[in-house]
């Protein structure tokens, strides 16, 4: 059997990696002797930032990457990180379906084929103090890690500060950062309750990981194996979305159990964020051109 190495960026126990492992298992069992997918979690083969390039070059035939981190390659990848346009799992699924044709087109141009996506839990706002409106964010040191989060910080009047993922908990421990927008799972993984008291469930956006294959490698597969893999991908997508929904509540409970206040956003905060969202969206639409406009139009019609 041909070995298909599958680099993954996140630890083996993360549900994204577990979903990928289940996907690999299903393919290996059903595809008979043609291929054998081996997952390499935790960036043990290629690091997160290298995986997309590695799959394009055929260094690995299949891999997984956080979709929005490829926003510089094409703005369409960033569609699930535009804040406050799809703020629930249902809305996020619709946005995914609406953007899928454009995504598939752009990826085919880059020589890869989209297999499936799995979302991260919705993004909330971590703060040290309670909020009544977005005015309370003025002057707060806010973790930015992408042009879009930088823009959100500036529109809030917060002070954006660049912190890499590896240094998040240390940055909060030493006061380099005081606030950020991230999912409950990040807070759980980095034990953020040691430094921050509030998590507002604003559901700013739901970023997704995507699994993709090198087109040349895909074309070499027999039609039967392609079918098996596509079916396994559909199963993985369904299981992954369900798992994300299930874990969202669990992560929130964990934050609460560790003494963090997990609150719904006050009305004034929500309206403030909606205004910010419109501004970011109009900038993004200028960048993304017809691909973006068509996806958003299709989403609005759903």
């Amino acid at each position: 059997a041909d070995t298909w190495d599958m680099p993954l960026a996140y630890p083996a126990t993360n549900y994204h990696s577990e979903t990928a492992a289940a996907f690999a298992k299903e393919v290996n069992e059903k595809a008979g002797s043609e291929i054998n997918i081996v997952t390499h979690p935790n960036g043990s083969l290629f690091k997160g930032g290298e995986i997309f390039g590695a799959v394009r070059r055929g260094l690995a035939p299949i891999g997984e990457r956080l979709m929005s981190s490829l926003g510089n390659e094409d703005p369409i990848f960033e569609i699930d990180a535009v804040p406050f346009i799809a703020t629930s799992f249902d809305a996020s699924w619709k946005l995914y379906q609406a953007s899928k044709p454009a995504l598939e087109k752009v990826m085919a141009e880059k020589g890869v084929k989209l297999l499936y996506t799995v979302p991260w839990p919705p993004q909330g706002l971590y703060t040290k103090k309670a909020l009544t409106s977005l005015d309370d964010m003025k002057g707060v040191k806010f973790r930015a890690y992408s042009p879009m989060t930088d823009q959100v910080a500036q529109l809030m009047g917060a002070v954006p500060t660049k912190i890499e993922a590896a240094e998040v908990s240390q940055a909060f421990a030493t006061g380099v950062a005081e606030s950020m927008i991230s999912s409950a799972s990040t807070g759980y993984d980095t034990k953020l309750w040691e430094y921050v008291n509030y998590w507002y469930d604003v559901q700013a956006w739901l970023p997704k990981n995507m699994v993709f294959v090198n087109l040349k490698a895909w074309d070499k597969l027999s039609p039967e194996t392609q079918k098996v893999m596509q079916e396994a991908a559909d199963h993985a997508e369904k299981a992954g979305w369900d798992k994300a929904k299930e874990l969202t509540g669990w992560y929130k409970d964990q934050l609460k159990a560790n003494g963090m206040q997990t609150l719904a956003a006050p009305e004034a905060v929500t309206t403030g964020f909606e205004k910010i969202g419109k501004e970011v969206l109009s900038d993004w639409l200028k960048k993304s051109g017809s691909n973006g406009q068509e996806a958003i139009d299709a989403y609005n019609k759903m």
Partner: protein
Amino acid sequence: MGWLCRVQSVLDGFYRFCGALAALCLMGMAACVIISIIARILGSYIGGITEYSAYLMGAANCLGLAYTFRAGGHIRVSLVIERFGSQTQRWIELGCLAFGSAAALYLAWYLVNLSYMSWDFGEVSEGGDQMQLYIPQAVTAFGAAVLALSVVHSFFEHLCRLITGRFVGSQLTAAEAELRAHEKAIGG
């Protein structure tokens, strides 16, 4: 043989020049880190500054490879070959340089290919710098190519000495090269 000496000294000057470029990159990297600290204190965001400091580190690492190689700065284990006579050692040294040349050419070739493919794909950095990745990768590839040049250069230099039997000055054996590197490191 006068022209050969001139070529040699031009080449050695070129490695030193690349070493100086590496030093500039190191300073540039330090400057980037200082700027990012100051930006944080002043409360402003500079997208891409961490990426720039990383590129400068990569440039410094690769541009200095040849200079370090010719200065005897790269590490090797001479434990086993010290047991042989000096003539045998010289032949082993030739083998090492031949292997090193092949490896360095291999490295340079594929780093060039990496940069070429990034250019072909139009690959862009994921960070706020939005850098076309082939640019910093080309610098890395250039450093590796200069390293390959310096190893091949050392190979022919050693071969000439082996044939003419004239071992003068530097780089007699691995052990002696090591000692020189050590003196350099300690003596400044």
